[in-house]
């Protein structure tokens, strides 16, 4: 079946910044406090109060702009977006309209089949968040809404993409990239549930081959990656059905309802859609010179895409390993630190992706809290590489290291786990095993080569795992064949 319509998606992402204070006043941005306990004349919009820009917000905006290949505007200004809403104390939101802080960026996403696609970033601008509306449910508050202004005036970056995405999957892929970047940079905690990372999707459809865009709907209120996919797919279906049945898509804001998986029109806000933007006379132009940009650039961490590339090209990791390890900044740092002390990058990757990640999950621990430092892990891997212990014993040592926080060498020594490489000692065990299993010896000699595994297992068991498996193998063959 050929789909006659093409989907066109642009995303507007709101990332709440991890500053200590709000964008225009000194109130704390901490989440989950008593309503209206983090307020002052400025964020309450009291008569006469004036905004002063938090420098850290600019710093974060530049960081994000550089990380997404944007041009940083040498001069940008703040504007007022005027509308009435109870969670908006001043009757206007301070945002940027003309002359945003970053423009003309891009981010590559990987498509299925390994191809990559470049998504344009139109602009990134700074703005203040609104407060929170709670719908009253106690008997006294029934039928009313309650306004908490703790969140009012917290800093946001709005990252606006070009309408470059052609499917919900592309949109998710782009969204995840941006999510990863802002979290990597430490400018946003990325928490979708708390609303620290939000996304509005502009969705339209058009017949294939048509140059101009169809009328778009703006989908709001989507707070998980899964819902974003659902919301977009539902909206695309709705628009196509509408067009097919002779209707017309109207430009409007639609709310996604995660309970029904449907979007519905938000008529309330529609009526007054004239925001009357104008430059905020209470704020002065923001001028960013090259030296400021250079200073921020030099403080940028290596970004996920660059890391992945380095892991593949310089360290020889397979693509999958590189992807997993680069996905999280702290995990990647752990890996990098481990590699600098260990002999083999691939072994580090295997152990981190295997043992470390498993253990993190099991014990509900964060990568920053792992009791085994990268240097300690490297030491353990080296002991395996130099045959001091076997890989299997290594796992036992790893467990003990996790529990005790002690080093590999120390544990191997005190627990007597050192691998037995003394030929004489192994020969004794080999002889014992051969003597104890005459039937199997006969079968082996009769051509059942696979039974060598059985003998190795027995010898290893007898040595409590400490015998060098390679030597065991060698000596067994020599003795059996010699018989």
């Amino acid at each position, binding site marked *: 079946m050929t789909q006659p319509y093409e989907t066109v998606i642009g995303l507007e992402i709101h990332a709440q910044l991890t500053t200590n204070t709000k964008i225009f006043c000194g109130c704390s941005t901490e989440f989950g406090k008593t309503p209206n306990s983090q307020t002052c004349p400025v964020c309450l*919009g009291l*008569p*006469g109060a004036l905004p002063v820009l938090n420098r850290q917000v600019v710093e974060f905006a530049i960081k994000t702009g550089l990380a997404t290949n944007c041009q940083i505007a040498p001069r940008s200004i703040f504007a007022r977006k*005027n509308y009435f809403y109870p969670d908006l104390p001043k009757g206007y939101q301070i945002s940027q309209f003309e002359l945003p802080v970053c423009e003309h960026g891009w981010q590559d996403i990987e498509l299925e089949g390994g191809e990559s696609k470049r998504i344009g970033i139109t602009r990134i601008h700074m703005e203040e968040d609104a407060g929170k509306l709670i719908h009253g449910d106690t008997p006294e508050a029934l039928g009313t809404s309650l306004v908490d202004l703790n969140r009012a005036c917290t800093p946001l970056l709005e990252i606006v993409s070009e309408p470059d995405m052609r499917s919900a999957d592309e949109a998710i892929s782009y969204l995840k990239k941006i999510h990863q970047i802002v979290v990597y940079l430490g400018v946003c905690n990325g928490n979708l549930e708390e609303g620290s990372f939000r996304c509005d999707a502009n969705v339209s459809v058009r017949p294939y081959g048509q140059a101009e865009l169809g009328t778009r709907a703006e989908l709001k209120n989507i707070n998980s990656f899964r819902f974003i996919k659902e919301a977009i797919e539902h909206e695309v279906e709705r628009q196509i059905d509408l067009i097919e049945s002779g209707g017309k898509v109207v430009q409007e804001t639609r709310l996604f309802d995660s309970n029904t998986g449907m979007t519905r029109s938000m008529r309330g806000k529609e009526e007054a859609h004239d925001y009357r933007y104008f430059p905020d006379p*209470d704020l002065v132009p923001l001028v960013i010179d090259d030296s400021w940009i250079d200073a921020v650039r030099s403080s940028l961490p290596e970004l996920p895409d660059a890391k992945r590339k380095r892991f593949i090209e310089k360290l020889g990791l397979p693509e999958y390993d590189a992807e997993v390890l680069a996905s999280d900044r702290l995990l990647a740092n752990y890996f990098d630190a481990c590699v600098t002390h260990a002999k083999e990058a691939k072994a580090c990757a295997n152990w981190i992706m295997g043992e470390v990640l498993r253990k993190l999950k099991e014990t509900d621990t964060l990568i920053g809290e792992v009791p085994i430092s990268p240097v300690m892990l490297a030491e353990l891997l080296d002991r395996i590489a130099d045959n001091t212990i076997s890989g299997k014993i290594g796992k036992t040592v790893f467990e003990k290291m996790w529990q005790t926080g002690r080093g590999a060498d120390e544990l191997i020594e005190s627990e007597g786990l050192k691998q037995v490489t003394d030929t004489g000692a192994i020969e004794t065990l080999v002889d014992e095993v051969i003597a104890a299993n005459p039937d199997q010896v006969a079968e082996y000699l009769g051509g059942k080569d696979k039974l060598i595994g059985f003998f190795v297992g027995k010898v290893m068991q007898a040595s409590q795992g400490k015998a060098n498996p390679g030597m065991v193998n060698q000596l067994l063959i020599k003795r059996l064949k010699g018989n």
Partner: protein
Amino acid sequence: MTIYDLTLAELRTKLDNRELSAVEVAEAYRARIAATDQDVNAYITVCDESAMAEAKLADQALAAGEIAPLTGLPIAAKDIFNTAGLKTTCASRILENYIAPYDATVIARIKEQKAVITGKLNMDEFAMGSSNENSAFGATRNPWNLNHVPGGSSGGSAACVASRQAAAALGTDTGGSIRQPASHCGVVGLKPTYGRVSRYGVIAYASSLDQVGPITRDVRDSALLLQAIAGHDPADSTSIDTPVPDYQATLTQELTGLKVGLPAEYFIDGLDEDVRRAVEQAVATYKELGAEIVEVSLPHTSYAVACYYLIATAEASSNLARYDGVRYGVRTDQAENLIDMYMQSRAAGFGAEVKRRIMLGTYALSSGYYDAYYLKAQKVRTMIRQDFLDAFAKVDVLLTPVAPTPAFTIGEKTNDPLQMYLSDIYTIPVNLAGTCAMSLPCGFSAAGLPIGLQLIGKPFEEATILRTAHAFEQATEWHKRKPEF
């Protein structure tokens, strides 16, 4: 000696010499306000108790030798300044119950010096007006003739100082709101350069034009009060971080060689003959004082009022959106839903002139009109500002009338908003250019109403206009006259 006739400087000396205590001064003013304000209606809130408490603290400071320039001096503030714990109404119904939970920076500064705040002064609602008739709490009357307006919007401030109900007052000036009432009431009003004095805590009318300044009995007091409030404030992004000179130090410098410019566009038809005569007399005085008089041109003057009414109303329409009945202020109890609550509360809370300006400003910013109105006005503003920069390349100060006529009668212009706006033609360009200017008494009309002279200075050269004004004051007697009632 009548205590309430003393200037700030005179009071300072008497307080420092222990000839008077701050409590005696405060009591004298309390009595004076009680005796006269039913006629003038300069005060919205009189601070009997808190003023007395502040006076006692000031006396303690004086006794301890901790004396700041304003310690113990009785100063009133336009009701546009947030004053912690006091009603701050902006002369609007919508804020009639609003108790400010914080101090404006300028209030904090004069409190820090232990000045005594005598009360909060009447004004045009949200500083929108030129006559004080737009107050929700009744018009203020001109102490020189109670049938006349005191000017506006700081009409309460000017009337208060003229009628000896405070030694000095703080006002604000967006399009002439300090200078025009000072002129109409025969006192000294100074509008500093935009950015010289903090706007933090000053209820905004038009943010890019509003500026705080002193209204005083004479020029020396103007310098004294400006000194106390001027200077950078990190809480106001538009306040300028530049040193504040010692205004007293240069006050008495001679004017020899000073170049005084007369802009031709300010001496045109429509200028009242009494005003023209008084200003021309002032020019003659300056010649005698050794100043050089130079003709200059400010070619875009006639566009200033149109430019101002677009910019000021646009900014105001946004600044006044916060009065929505959600967090403070009047809320109607008639509303059936949220939108209704907004519409009814604002309709009930704002007066006619405020509504008119919100409407005009909303329209000027609305979709499809922004370029034609707001942006166009901002460009014309650039041209007007350039006029001043060009003129100041040739002269040190500009000398002009403050208002085309002396104070008009109450009710005379209330039915014609445009005519009211045009009465600010000589003061508005200064706000658009952002520079400093002051008004000082230079004569009286045949009907006995005061006439003011405007001196306009280069940006941040308040010291120059202060000494220019001071020399004139020393050479004349106008500032010594006081209204009788």
